[in-house]
């Protein structure tokens, strides 16, 4: 058996395939395995080598058609990227909600001043003071009312973001399921994992810096909210980084 027909077919297929070299090699290798199996089956039926190859190739289909099926179209690519982007926004909002929960623990453990207070000596406008004192009649000073406002608004907004994030992720899970996919598959795609690791990593650095400044320059006033968010961002960045590294190992650098 010369195998020349199969070799020519594989050359043609390889030139038509688009994507990462590793994926192309994998496809070509799988197709070659398939064609060798089909050729062997033809030989077992009593065909001569050339005829067995010809029949194996005829049964397999044209290289152009197979490559068209394997290559992602621009529309499929854009739809996938849009889905990943929305899912990442959902994860980010859930992370904000989780940071609210961690901040609430900090309020209980470290006090409201550590979690939310402005730097000592911050001056507030008369209008703001009037508004906050109106909202928090139990407060005995403008600074106290500002802190009450910061605690209630800060926690409420974070929890609300978390709920919106859960709704977004539930909607994406439903849509993914309807299209025969899973939310997990969407969020563990290479682009989603790399963007997630980079964005959450950058957020963790900025938030840690803000928290560190509050500790070093303002006696810790308000550091809790930044450090809570930094911690959640750091964990999310780590998770995405692990997924990204696994995916990068499967891709060319």
């Amino acid at each position, binding site marked *: 058996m010369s195998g020349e027909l199969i070799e020519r077919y594989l050359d043609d297929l390889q030139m038509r395939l688009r994507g990462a070299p590793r994926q192309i090699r*994998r*496809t070509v*290798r*799988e*197709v070659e*395995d*398939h064609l060798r*199996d*089909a050729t062997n089956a033809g030989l077992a039926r009593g065909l001569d080598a050339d005829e067995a190859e010809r029949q194996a190739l005829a*049964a*397999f*289909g*044209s290289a152009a*058609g*197979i490559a068209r*099926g*394997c290559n992602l179209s621009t529309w499929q690519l854009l739809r996938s990227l849009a889905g990943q982007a929305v899912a990442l926004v959902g994860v980010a909002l859930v992370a904000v909600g989780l940071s609210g929960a961690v901040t609430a623990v900090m309020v209980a453990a470290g006090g409201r001043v550590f979690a939310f207070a402005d730097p000592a000596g911050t001056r507030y406008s008369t209008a703001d003071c009037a508004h906050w004192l109106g909202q928090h009649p139990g407060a005995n000073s403008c600074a106290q009312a500002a802190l009450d406002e910061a605690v209630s608004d800060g926690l409420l907004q974070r929890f609300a973001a978390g709920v919106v994030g859960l709704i977004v992720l539930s909607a994406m899970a439903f849509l993914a*399921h309807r*299209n*025969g*996919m*899973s939310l*997990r*598959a969407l969020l*563990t795609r290479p682009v989603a994992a790399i963007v997630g690791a980079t964005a959450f990593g950058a957020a963790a650095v900025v938030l840690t810096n803000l928290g560190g400044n509050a500790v070093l320059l303002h006696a810790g006033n308000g550091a809790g909210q930044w450090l809570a968010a930094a911690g959640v961002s750091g964990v999310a960045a780590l998770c995405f980084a692990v997924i990204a590294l696994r995916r990068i190992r499967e891709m060319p650098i």
Partner: protein
Amino acid sequence: MNERLKGNLDLLVLEVLAARPAHGYDVIVSLRDRSDGAFDLPEGTVYPALYRLERSGLLASSWTSEAGRRRRVYMLTATGRRALAAQRRQWREFVSAVGAVLGAPA
């Protein structure tokens, strides 16, 4: 027949792989055998379906060595099993509805 088959290829591939992990050639041979030769698509069309299902998280795959030859073997994930159960249910409802319409007097 083949156009209808293409529209339901994902379900059929999942069904074949629900029985046991298999490589691409094995999948297409099983499809042909289990349909008594009625499903006779170009064999290569199984690969885009396998890749699509793997990208969707319904299949996982790995290289294995079989009689000294490397083969890419596909298996259902937990998500794939759930998707197969849902697709089977939808297919049966569809067949039942079509059957009811076809069986109805004109």
